[in-house]
């Protein structure tokens, strides 16, 4: 029976790669999550066959509790609030990774290369846990959304990071007394949790997706490190896949917003000056009727949706408007800024929810081209 575990883990890894690959193309995207889900179910099921495993009742209880809470909230939340759900579930995964690493460290007492990997897993897991929770609370408006900055913030962050690393080194090098290294471990966990918290504080508004993608990637790395200390190759490969893809997504998003990743890590992120591009040309106010006439007599209309449309759930109305205009022979397109909505692609999901075909959604380059010969562009 034990022979089943490794083949299934290998299959899991292959399925995950296929899943990611399929999720990268619109036509096959949905089947991607099905492949990944199937692989996950198999690998979790087969883990129960581990030799000499105990506490089975507790494990099942934990899975039932976690799964019901997770399913309940993720099924209820509106599509517009999905980004914070990604943040909170990422934080949970990171918390799990940090907990596993702590158990390894407590049991192993900080010896051998395993301890180094487990320590790194603990630090990254803790940082990603509190960071993701802050991101969740900001997007959910439990915390103030605007960047929170204070004097000496960078110095404080760096000091906390140094303390974190210092206690990690102390934990690994100091082998005299078991109770003292437990204190080192606790301080280490405390400071890395604090660092994650401080790291997310100065970030707000449109910058949130970058930090969520970044923490997602960090969690992947934490999982891979745990995988190493548990000698579990499925966790190593899955973790590294997420770590790499997460970093690439982070860089793509940061680039779209003219930020650098160094600024993300050292927290000066939110302080970058807001753009002050003044509107050029003539502005005049337009009544509803005028707007209706203008739209229905134009040839080509480009809608530039923003977060206002999303938070008002107006994508359904916009779709109705599109249908009405199409009936009159007006061509309607949607120009999607890379970071419209709360994450790159979030706006596309919201419009897809309302039934707008994705062929009508234009990316940045084609939008700029099309905007030049459009009759009306309207911004929401």
């Amino acid at each position: 029976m034990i022979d089943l575990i490794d083949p299934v883990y290998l299959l899991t890894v292959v399925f995950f790669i296929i899943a990611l690959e399929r999720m990268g193309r619109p036509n096959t995207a949905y089947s991607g999550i099905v492949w990944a889900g199937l692989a996950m179910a198999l690998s979790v099921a087969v883990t129960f066959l581990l030799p000499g495993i105990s506490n089975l009742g507790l494990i099942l209880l934990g899975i039932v509790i976690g799964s019901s809470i997770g399913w309940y909230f993720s099924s209820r939340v509106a599509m517009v609030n999905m980004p914070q759900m990604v943040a909170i579930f990422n934080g949970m995964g990171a918390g799990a990774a940090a907990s596993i690493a702590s158990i390894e460290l407590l049991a192993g007492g900080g010896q051998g290369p395993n301890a180094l990997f487990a320590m790194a897993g603990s630090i990254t897991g803790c940082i990603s846990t509190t960071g993701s929770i802050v991101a969740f609370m900001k997007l959910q408006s439990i915390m103030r959304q605007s960047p929170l900055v204070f004097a000496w913030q960078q110095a404080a962050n760096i000091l906390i990071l140094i303390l974190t690393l210092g206690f990690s080194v102390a934990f690994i090098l100091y082998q005299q007394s078991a109770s003292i290294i437990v204190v080192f471990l606790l301080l280490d966990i405390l400071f890395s949790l604090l660092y994650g918290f401080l790291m997310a504080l100065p970030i707000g508004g449109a910058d949130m997706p970058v930090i969520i993608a970044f923490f997602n990637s960090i969690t992947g790395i934490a999982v891979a490190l745990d995988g190493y200390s548990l000698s579990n190759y499925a966790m190593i490969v899955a973790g590294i896949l997420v770590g790499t893809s997460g970093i690439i997504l982070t860089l793509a998003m940061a680039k779209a917003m003219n930020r650098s990743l160094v600024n993300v890590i050292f927290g000066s992120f939110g302080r970058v000056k807001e753009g002050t591009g003044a509107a050029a040309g003539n502005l005049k106010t337009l009544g509803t009727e005028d707007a209706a006439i203008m739209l229905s007599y134009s040839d080509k209309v480009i809608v530039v949706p923003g977060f206002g449309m999303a938070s008002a759930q107006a994508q359904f109305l916009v779709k109705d408007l599109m249908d009405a205009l199409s009936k009159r022979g007006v061509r309607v397109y949607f120009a999607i800024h890379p970071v419209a909505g709360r994450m790159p692609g979030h706006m596309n999901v919201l419009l897809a929810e309302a039934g707008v075909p994705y062929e009508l959604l234009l990316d940045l380059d084609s939008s700029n081209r099309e905007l030049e010969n459009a009759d009306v562009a309207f911004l929401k």
Partner: protein
Amino acid sequence: MPSDIWLSLYIIILALFIGYEVIVRVPVILHTPLMSGSNFIHGIVLIGGIYALGYATTVVEQVIGFLAVVMGSLNVTGGFRVTQRMLSMFTKRKGQAEHDRPH
């Protein structure tokens, strides 16, 4: 053993390249679902939680292991459901999309 660490490094390097190649050409419209999908994939941490709790001997280890299993399951089910709901927007026709609208 050194051979073990080298083997792991080979695996990590290869996985890095696969992660890069798989993701680098993805269109912007799929960035958010894909981030959510990779969020689900690191839910594999749940099997680490099962290891940790399954071999826990002291009460402290059991408590932390239990927390790890709960949080890991939250990651797995939440990550799956969020991704699945987002991606279903790309397959459904209008009538069904209206039906799935939050109330």
